[in-house]
Each structure stands twice: as structure tokens, then as C-alpha cells.
């Protein structure tokens, strides 16, 4: 029996269910003290003075003068300081760090900061500071929009911030040890932290390592921000010479850390009267917040997916992500695509309405097929499944019947068709040069990669791949906890790449290991020859061509495909929407571990439903005004509808055992499916979250 394709026992063990698993806040070190971050209380201005209005006995105090080398979080650009020096660009910007062994004293310490305030910029449409712009051109959209006889449909669609709400807030511990410094923390990307710390510390502190503790959810929210917190903890630890723990409380986490980029997407589309797409002109604007963080790549992925899974000869996409005086937005599951796919899918239903067509038929006519070219000119291969998922979703939900029978009632049904590129964009995987390592142990093999388990099943799924590729019992495969001093840098745990890309390198490592072992078992080989290690680097498929200056070519090696159908009930007195069933038909190559894969779809769908209906970040004067779980609400058990998950297979030959990426795909569909169901009710809504307050003001469709 093979391990791949079956829901084998997870490598996590039982600890998560017994309370034995150790998360960052569960760990203490002798002599440990606690850190606290003093943050700006204005959205824009300059620091005039800082007064420490407390008894400094026992305190460690760090400001930007304590930065060992460079006061910049090294990510895509180096514009964001670990600690503000003079300029303040957003609310809750870190200015000063305090540490003390007594948390009461720490929390009571009063710091008075005087500012010279200046006029903040909150409206991204008014921002002239562009972090990154993207242009994608296929054919000649401007000319085709002027063709005789075409129908033009225009629309503007907006999406709001979204907060990750991993249930474990951010937290790390910096520990001076072994002549260097170690970070134990809740992180998605340990090697990102290493990169940031090297920049912060310079060559004087060579020995830094990062050990991932059990991580209570990430969803992108622990991709880049842990670099900031780790830098803070390290500076306090260096100055005090003691282990320093920084754990954010929920409010600090919500107010200070990254969110999903709000977006404004404008569509102008030309079609023939019978519903064939002729031209798509798309303008994408994303609010980056006060620093660059990962905005360029979020914009990039958003733009590449902006035309949706449709075939159109003439496409012009212009995107920009801009500065505002708000906390920086960053990575969040889907990474720009949920925003732009929301827009195009709601636009498609408006087009159908405009043409008097059935929304499914409109998609049948236009959905991408193998051989078609995407907006970037990528020719799709046989693993493109738009029509397969669409037809299955329509059939399974009895969509046509419900669409007709429910018209004019308070029940409604709507769908969204979507796709999601797996792995880094374009040449990203080639440039990343990620590596994986397999080590022979006395009883089997150990996987040593930096890819983190954050709930999605990294450990288990990697072990399954190695098990089958090596042909040994699953129990003989061990997975090392990510520790940057001991594992290979397999790249960040993001972009739906951990299975497809890192899993692929591991598969190849296993093949190489198998050759070395010959006819011996790992134990036999070890007893005879001792330990051996195999390490390999990722080689993307050789056919991938990408021109980053023109944004043309093979944006992703493959795509996952999905069709979500939302069925809901509407209360016309309270404008409340009750989802009653969400059918998620998704194709992602092949599930390595069906139960884990299903969990990704169910969980991503829940986040998508929250995004659609509930989750509204209220910004006041540049800060989240509802930064508590009481007031920023995510779905509870009673908010979730019945979920019907259908996993379809269409293997990707370049993935391990045919697998594609999955993690982000489920996030793309629920919001447009829900809003299209609202349109079926006759409500013209083009923005999310579609709160009852918003719906009470919407016109009729």
C-alpha cells in the first residue's frame, strides 16, 4: 500500500490534542524577561521628543541607536525600519522597546512621546507614491473595445482589509546561547527571519539561528511580520544579555501587524452579443500601506489573475500598489488573487445579466481550455480544468433548477469560477534556488527542510512523498523541526509551493537516496556505511519561460482550478445573509493526504466566507478601530453553512505524484460566489465585505 493518496496518521503526533505541543508562549528560559513595543499614536509626522516617565530599575530600553548594523527589515526593499528614528508613517509603528522580568512593571511603564503631526494620506486613489506598477498586454484591448457591434460592460469592484486572525497571536523568544543568538518563534518562514537579522546585525553577529515553535496558524500573517518582532527581541536580548520573550496580545496583533490589501478594480469589457469576450481592460489598485513589504508580489499575482480563468484575445491589465499612511499590508492566503478574482467574477455575472445570458453559459463560452493562452500569453497544458470543475459544480448543485425556482424568493444561488497559480511567479522559483535535504538515520530517513508546519500538514505530506519515493515504511520517515542551523533552506512556506515545489525536491532526494542504498534498507545501509545525506535544489520545468520586464510568458508552472457554488437565504428585514450551503469543487492535481487536503479547502472556504460577509476592518485615523475579536468577527460554528467538498484530479506531471499547490486556491471562490448569489436575489452589490449595513444601501440588480 502506498502512503500517497491515503489519509495516513499525521506526523504531528498527538500533542496538539493533548496540550503537550509547545507554542511560543508555552516556552520559558531561565532568566527570561519580557519585551514590549512602544508604538506611534499618530499616522504621520515626526517624533519631537521621547520621555521615559518611569523608574528604569531593571528595565532594558532599546531605541534605534541600539541597532547593531542596519535599521531596516530586509524584505523586498529595505524601506521599513525596525524602530522609527524620526519619521512616523503609520499608526502603531514601533519606536521604542522595553523589557523587564516583571510584566506588571513592564506594562505600567509610561512613555510620553511628542510628535509634530502632518496631514496623513489614507485614500489610495489620491496617493502618488507608487510602490510597484504592473502592465500586462495581450493583443490590443484599446482597439478591440472600439470594434463595431460589441457590447461594453463596465464596473468597479472593491474589497476591504482582512485580518488573518490566526488564533495564536505573533510571538517569539530571542535567546543568547552558544555564542550567538537563537530565535524560537511562531514563524512561517524561518529563513526570512535569518535574512532580516543578518541585515540588522551585520557581520559582527554571525551566529543567528531560528527554530520554529509549533505555530498556531499563519495564513500569510506570519510570513513577514515575524522578522520585525524577531529583530526587536534580538536587540533586547543583546542589550540585556538575557532571553527575551515578546508575545503580542490580540489587540496589538490586530492593530499593528499586516492585513490583506484593500483593492479597487475597474473592468471595462467588450463582448459579442452572443457572449464571447472580445476585450478586457482592467485597472487594479492596491493599498500597500506605509511600507513596501511584499506589496509588489501581491500586486503581481493579483494582476496575473485579474482576467480570471477566461480566454480573451485582447487584454490590458494595469496595476499599481501605492503608499498610504496606514500599517503596511502584506501576505494573506491568496496574495492578491482573491481581490482581483472577486472583481472579475462579479463582473462576469453583471455581464451575463447585461446580455440576458445564463451566467454558466457565459462561462462555458469563455472559460480557458488546454491550448488557450492566458493574459500573460501562457499556453495552458492538459492540466487545465476550468470546464471540468464548472460542469461538476453545476451538476452537483442542481444549479440550473435552483436558479430558476428560487428567482424572486429569499433563497439564492450563485457561483464563481477561479484558478490559482501554484508556486512563485514567473522566474521566481528558478531565482529562489530552494533546497531540500534527506538524511539517513539509524532507523530510516529524516527530512530536513525549512518548510514549516503551520497546520496545513507539511510534515505529514512531505513524509508521505518520501515514503513512497523511497519505498520504505512511513513510520521510518522522520521530519526535523525547522531549525535554520540544521535544515536546508527550502524557501518560504507560502504561495502554495510547499507540496508541489518542496515536495518535488524531496521526491528527487528520495530517488537519489534510493539509488545510493541499492538493495539495502536505510537501517542496513546505516549500520554498514554510516550516515549519508542527500541534498538537492529545485529545478523548475525547463519549458517555463518568463519575461519579467514585459510580464509575458509562463506565469506559473501549473494552476489549481475551482468552482464554488453558494446557496443562501436572505432576511429582507435585517439584510442578513445566511449561507446554507457552499459547494467547493476544486482540482489541484492529486491530493497527497485527502483528509488534510479537504481541511485546506474547508478552512480556506470559511475564510473566504468571512471575507465575503463578516470581516470588516474599521479604520479610523489610520488605525484599526475594531481590533478585538469581539468587534472584528470571523465565522463561528453557527455562521458556517454545510460544506460540500469535491476534490477532482488532473495530475500535474511536474509535481510530486501529480500534486499541484492547494493552500490558496480555496480562498479565491467564496466571496464572488456569495456576491453572485446576492445578485440572483436582485441586490446590486459590488463590494466586500457585503455586510448587512452595506446591503441595506444597495440598489437592485
Amino acid at each position, binding site marked *: 500500500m502506498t502512503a500517497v493518496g491515503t489519509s495516513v496518521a499525521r506526523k504531528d503526533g498527538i500533542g496538539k*490534542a*493533548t*496540550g503537550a505541543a509547545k507554542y511560543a508562549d508555552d516556552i520559558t528560559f531561565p532568566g527570561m524577561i519580557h519585551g514590549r513595543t512602544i508604538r506611534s499614536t499618530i499616522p504621520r509626522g515626526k517624533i519631537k521628543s521621547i520621555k521615559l516617565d518611569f523608574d528604569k530599575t531593571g528595565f532594558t530600553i532599546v531605541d534605534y541607536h541600539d541597532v547593531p548594523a542596519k535599521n531596516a527589515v530586509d524584505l523586498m526593499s529595505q524601506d521599513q525600519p525596525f524602530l522609527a528614528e524620526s519619521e512616523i508613517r503609520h499608526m502603531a509603528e514601533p519606536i521604542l522597546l522595553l523589557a523587564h522580568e516583571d510584566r506588571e512593571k513592564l506594562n505600567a511603564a509610561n512613555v510620553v512621546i511628542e510628535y509634530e503631526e502632518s496631514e496623513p494620506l489614507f485614500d489610495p486613489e489620491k496617493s502618488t507614491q507608487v510602490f510597484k506598477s504592473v502592465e500586462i498586454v495581450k493583443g490590443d484591448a484599446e482597439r478591440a473595445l472600439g470594434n463595431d457591434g460589441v457590447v461594453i460592460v463596465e464596473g468597479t469592484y472593491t474589497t476591504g482589509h482582512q485580518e488573518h486572525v*490566526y488564533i495564536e497571536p505573533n510571538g517569539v523568544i530571542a535567546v543568547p546561547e552558544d555564542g550567538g543568538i537563537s530565535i524560537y518563534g511562531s514563524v512561517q518562514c524561518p529563513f526570512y527571519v535569518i535574512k532580516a537579522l543578518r541585515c540588522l546585525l551585520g557581520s559582527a553577529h554571525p551566529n543567528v539561528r531560528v527554530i520554529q515553535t509549533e505555530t*498556531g496558524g499563519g*495564513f500569510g500573517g506570519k510570513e513577514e511580520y515575524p522578522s520585525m518582532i524577531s529583530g526587536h527581541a534580538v536587540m533586547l536580548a543583546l542589550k540585556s544579555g538575557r532571553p527575551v520573550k515578546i508575545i503580542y496580545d490580540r489587540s496589538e496583533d490586530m492593530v499593528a501587524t499586516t492585513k490583506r490589501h484593500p483593492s479597487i478594480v475597474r473592468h471595462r469589457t467588450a463582448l459579442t452579443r452572443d457572449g464571447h469576450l472580445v476585450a478586457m481592460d482592467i485597472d487594479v489598485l492596491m493599498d500597500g500601506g506605509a511600507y513596501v513589504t511584499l506589496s509588489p508580489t501581491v500586486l503581481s499575482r493579483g494582476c496575473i489573475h485579474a482576467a480570471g480563468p477566461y480566454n480573451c484575445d485582447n487584454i490590458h491589465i494595469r496595476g499599481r500598489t501605492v503608499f498610504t499612511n496606514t500599517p503596511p499590508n502584506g501576505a494573506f492566503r491568496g496574495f492578491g488573487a482573491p481581490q482581483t478574482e472577486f472583481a472579475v467574477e462579479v463582473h462576469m455575472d453583471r455581464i451575463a445579466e447585461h446580455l440576458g445570458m445564463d451566467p454558466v453559459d457565459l462561462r462555458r463560452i469563455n472559460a480557458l481550455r488546454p491550448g488557450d493562452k492566458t493574459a500573460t500569453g501562457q499556453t495552458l497544458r492538459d492540466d487545465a480544468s476550468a470546464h471540468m470543475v464548472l460542469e461538476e459544480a453545476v451538476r452537483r448543485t442542481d444549479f440550473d433548477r435552483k436558479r430558476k425556482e428560487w428567482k424572486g424568493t429569499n433563497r439564492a444561488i450563485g457561483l464563481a469560477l477561479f484558478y490559482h497559480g501554484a508556486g512563485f511567479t514567473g522566474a521566481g522559483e528558478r531565482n529562489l534556488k530552494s533546497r531540500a535535504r534527506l538524511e539517513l538515520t539509524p532507523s530510516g530517513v529524516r527530512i530536513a527542510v525549512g518548510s514549516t508546519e503551520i497546520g496545513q500538514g507539511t510534515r505529514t505530506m512531505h513524509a508521505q512523498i518520501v515514503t513512497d519515493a523511497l519505498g520504505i515504511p512511513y513510520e521510518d520517515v522522520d521530519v526535523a523541526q525547522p531549525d535554520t542551523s540544521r535544515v536546508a533552506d527550502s524557501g518560504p512556506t507560502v504561495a502554495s509551493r510547499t507540496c508541489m515545489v518542496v515536495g518535488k525536491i524531496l521526491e528527487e532526494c528520495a530517488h537519489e537516496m534510493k539509488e545510493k542504498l541499492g538493495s539495502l534498507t536505510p537501517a542496513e545501509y546505516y549500520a554498514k556505511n554510516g550516515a549519508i545525506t542527500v541534498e538537492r535544489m529545485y529545478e523548475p520545468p525547463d519549458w517555463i519561460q518568463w519575461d519579467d520586464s514585459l510580464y509575458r510568458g509562463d506565469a506559473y508552472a501549473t494552476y489549481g482550478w475551482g468552482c464554488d457554488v453558494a446557496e443562501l437565504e436572505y432576511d429582507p428585514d435585517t439584510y442578513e445573509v445566511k449561507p446554507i450551503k457552499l459547494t467547493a469543487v476544486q482540482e489541484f492535481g492529486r491530493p497527497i493526504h485527502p483528509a488534510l487536503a479537504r481541511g485546506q479547502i*474547508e478552512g480556506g472556504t470559511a475564510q473566504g466566507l468571512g471575507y465575503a460577509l463578516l470581516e470588516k476592518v474599521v479604520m479610523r485615523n489610520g488605525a484599526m478601530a475594531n481590533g478585538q475579536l469581539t468587534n472584528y468577527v470571523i465565522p463561528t460554528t453557527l455562521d458556517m453553512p454545510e460544506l460540500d467538498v469535491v476534490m477532482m484530479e488532473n495530475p500535474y506531471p511536474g509535481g510530486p505524484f501529480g500534486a499541484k499547490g492547494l493552500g490558496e486556491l480555496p480562498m479565491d471562490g467564496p466571496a464572488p460566489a456569495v456576491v453572485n448569489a446576492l445578485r440572483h436575489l436582485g441586490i446590486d452589490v459590488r463590494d466586500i465585505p457585503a455586510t448587512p449595513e452595506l446591503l441595506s444601501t444597495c440598489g437592485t440588480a
Partner: protein
Amino acid sequence: MTQFTLNGESTQTESSPASRLLDVLREELHLTGSKEGCGEGECGACTVLVDGEPVCSCIIPVGQVEGCEVVTIEGLGGNHPLQELFMNEVGAQCGICTPGMIMAAMTLGPEPTLEEVKIALAGNLCRCTGYSAIYRAILKWRGMPLPTEAGSLVIE
């Protein structure tokens, strides 16, 4: 001083009666299975049983459990069938909400309906699973049939 029974054993704490029960459990008694997700009784990750009733230990002064029976996730031992099911059914993904979820589920009757499960867990937030896998774990534990609403699945 507050005296109470913790996981079947008599316990006492010198902490102020105003200390949060969660802090006493985690920091003084080193039972870190109960988690803090919000500190305002909203997420349920800190759920423990006090005299058999699930409560949020992050908002309870330890003085209020004087003389009470407190059971935490550690009190279930390490091989409760529901714990195994949470792992096997992937009711636990990241796991941070899991101890609280399991404690909240402890009060369910022998034959809970799906609706009863949902109500019992409405005070426990999970951001990973969408809850369906949690329902599957609990219903299997109680030997209840899985309604399609607990999540159907087709691979084609």
C-alpha cells in the same frame, strides 16, 4: 490563598484571587495546554471545565474557583479517544484552538446531533478548519452517523 481540585488533585495557589485562572494554570502550575487567543472570552482557546461546565479561564479570577473542580486538557490524559480523532480527522490543523474545543465538547451528551455540536462549540473559534472536520471528530467519537452536512467528499 485559593484551594481547588485540579484534574482530580487538590491544588492551592498563593496568587492573588484576582489573578486570571488561565495565568495560574499556565505560569504557576505549568499546564500550558490551555491557550490564550484573545484574553476577552471571545475565542474559547482557554476553555476549561469548572464543576463540569465549560468556561473561559482567561476571564475568571482564580478566587472564583475556590473549592471547585477544575479540569484542563491535561486532565484528559494523553490518549482520550477524542484527542486521537481530532488528529485523525484533521479537526486539529494548527492545533491552537484544539484543547479548548475538546474541553467544550466534553459536556456533550452521549448522542449529540450536529446542531447540538455546533451550539456547544459556538464559543470556540477555529480559523483553520471551517469546523467541519471538528464535527466529524466529535460525531465519530460519539458513534453518531455523519450527516452529509458534516462535509461530504468525492474524489473523481
